[in-house]
């Protein structure tokens, strides 16, 4: 157990270093920080001075170390476009993105799992066929188009729901939440449904195939032979055993959902980190790009780590030491 945890931790640190290195190169080599900070009429002497204060005359590894130390303290410099510290900008935007992503993941679980169970149990009913075909179409639909069509129907034609922004937000310490007001909740509906489309189809297909696999196993046959009710067999035995991969994939998807929120946030003008990032790409705002990259990298690494640990807890087979340590 301990060896496993340590190995995974080391791997995560390596990945984070790689991500930090990309962000660092972006910061220092791609955009010339000196000319970014000085007016065009600056003299050569000014330039040298700025280079010194920024530590750009130091050898490469020293600069990288300084960058990492700064990053660990949340110091990513000043946004070129907005003229404010990047860390403050990201902290402001983080709650919006996280609320959106979690809402989407919850919808994914609460709609995806029942749909998956239903299509696995009633394989030949026409509802199952419709659901499966719909999920195939769902995968072929670009996410932003789903958003646009939802806006067209529910905001423009029917006028039921707002189509942009977060509504009224309440400030709780450093966290601004839209979950406590009616307008905030209404504003969350369309973006979270849009964002949940992919997780729903994925979880449904996953639960379905896992469930069908489990229903063929001997212990299910044995449970039936013992005369247990269908309900107990399906939910107590079969569903529980399908949940391991579902936990993994949903966990891994959460990172993807946060990243995909870039698109959804643009469609709905949702004031989250994704929108900030897209504007940074459009305006070549390197500090924001670098910081976002590090943050998303960190979220991904942490999620991967937690999912691996969960897997370890849920599936006892992983706890047995493998002889010879083959594979990876």
């Amino acid at each position, binding site marked *: 157990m301990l060896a496993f945890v340590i190995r995974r931790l080391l791997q995560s640190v390596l990945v984070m270093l790689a991500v930090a290195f990309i962000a660092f190169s972006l910061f220092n080599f791609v955009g010339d920080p000196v000319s970014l900070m000085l007016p065009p009429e600056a003299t050569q002497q000014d330039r040298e001075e700025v280079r010194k204060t920024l530590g750009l005359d130091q050898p490469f590894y020293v600069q990288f170390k300084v960058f990492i130390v700064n990053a660990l303290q949340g110091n990513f410099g000043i946004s070129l476009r907005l003229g404010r510290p990047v860390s403050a900008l990201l902290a402001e935007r983080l709650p919006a993105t996280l609320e959106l992503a979690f809402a989407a993941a919850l919808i994914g679980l609460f709609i995806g799992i029942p749909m998956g169970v239903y299509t696995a149990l009633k394989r030949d009913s026409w509802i199952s066929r419709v659901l499966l075909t719909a999920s195939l179409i769902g995968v072929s*639909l670009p996410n*932003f188009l789903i958003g*646009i069509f939802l806006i067209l129907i529910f905001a423009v034609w029917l006028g039921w729901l707002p189509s942009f922004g977060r509504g009224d937000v309440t400030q709780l310490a450093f966290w601004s939440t839209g979950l406590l007001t009616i307008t905030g909740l209404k504003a969350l509906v369309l973006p979270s449904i849009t964002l949940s489309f992919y997780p729903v189809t994925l979880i449904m297909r996953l639960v379905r195939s896992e469930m069908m696999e489990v229903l063929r196993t001997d212990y299910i046959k044995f449970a039936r032979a013992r005369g247990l009710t269908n309900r107990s067999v399906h939910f107590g035995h079969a569903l529980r055993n399908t949940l391991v991969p579902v936990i993994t994939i949903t966990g891994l998807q959460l990172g993807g959902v946060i990243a995909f929120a870039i*698109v959804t946030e643009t469609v709905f003008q949702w004031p989250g980190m994704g929108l900030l990032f897209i504007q940074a790409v*459009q305006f070549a705002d390197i500090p924001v790009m670098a910081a976002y990259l590090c943050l998303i990298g960190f979220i991904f690494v942490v999620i991967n780590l937690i999912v691996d640990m969960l897997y370890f807890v849920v599936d006892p087979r992983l706890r047995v030491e493998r002889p010879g340590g083959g594979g990876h």
Partner: protein
Amino acid sequence: MAQSMLVRALDSDVYYSFKRSPLIIVAAAVTLICILGAVLAPILAPHNPFDLASLNLLDAFTAPAWTEAGKARYLLGTDDQGRDVLSTIMYGARMSLLVGFLATMLAMLLGVSLGLIAGYVGGKVDAFIMRIADIQLSFPAILIALLIDGVARVVLPKDQHDTLALYVLVIAIAGSGWVRYARTVRGSTLVERNKEYVQAARVIGRSKIAIMFTHVLPNVLGPVLVLGTLHIGEAIITEATLSFLGVGVPPTQPSLGTLIRIGNDFLFSGEWWITVFPGTALVVLVLAINLLGDWLRDALNPKLR
């Protein structure tokens, strides 16, 4: 010769399974129509949306022909600059298909080469390439593409953005999609490299590169082509998404994604057709290509017969 090949093709299992499935015939027909419409856009399109002289601003925001406010000249209506929506869709599909196709080819080239090298050379090279692949695979493709796109925007001078946008986009999408090919090819290369014909080639003294690319490559290419078919649809979606986000091709040479982005601004003023028709065209195109790819994967997989 040509005739015997035609006979063989008509006699094959793939053609048989093609004939049996009406859905696939429809998908193939739709794909063909889309490609023809896109490639022959300069000939077939009712108007040239980029000929500024033929544009009439008075015609801007004309509704589709079957509505009351519509004009028969513009079947699907016009956009904010008076461009015929049907024509812009045909030209836009041309751009989308071009980028999707080029990006898939480049990703394939990159992935197959790296996979071959990783699988054949092995050792540290293999570990290095596959490590990068693993890391990249844990991030979503759209994020990688956005990142490459963003870096290119910083590096390139501003006045070159529009002319180079197409290439930047192709590289960004390819850079985000090569891993699947590398993994597949590496796997089959590991199997092939120990076979007798490779040993024979090595014994007669052929160079590593020659063995990799003339002997091993043809034997590992099968699954790659199927992956490629499935990748085209995805590449088109990625392109559309990037263009929709405003970091793709410029509005002067729009793709379907750019058209949807333009139309999105007019959603609330009631001009729904400027977005809905390019959007529908995109969905139909991608769905048809994906159905074909899915079918091809199953048809070429002997295990499923």
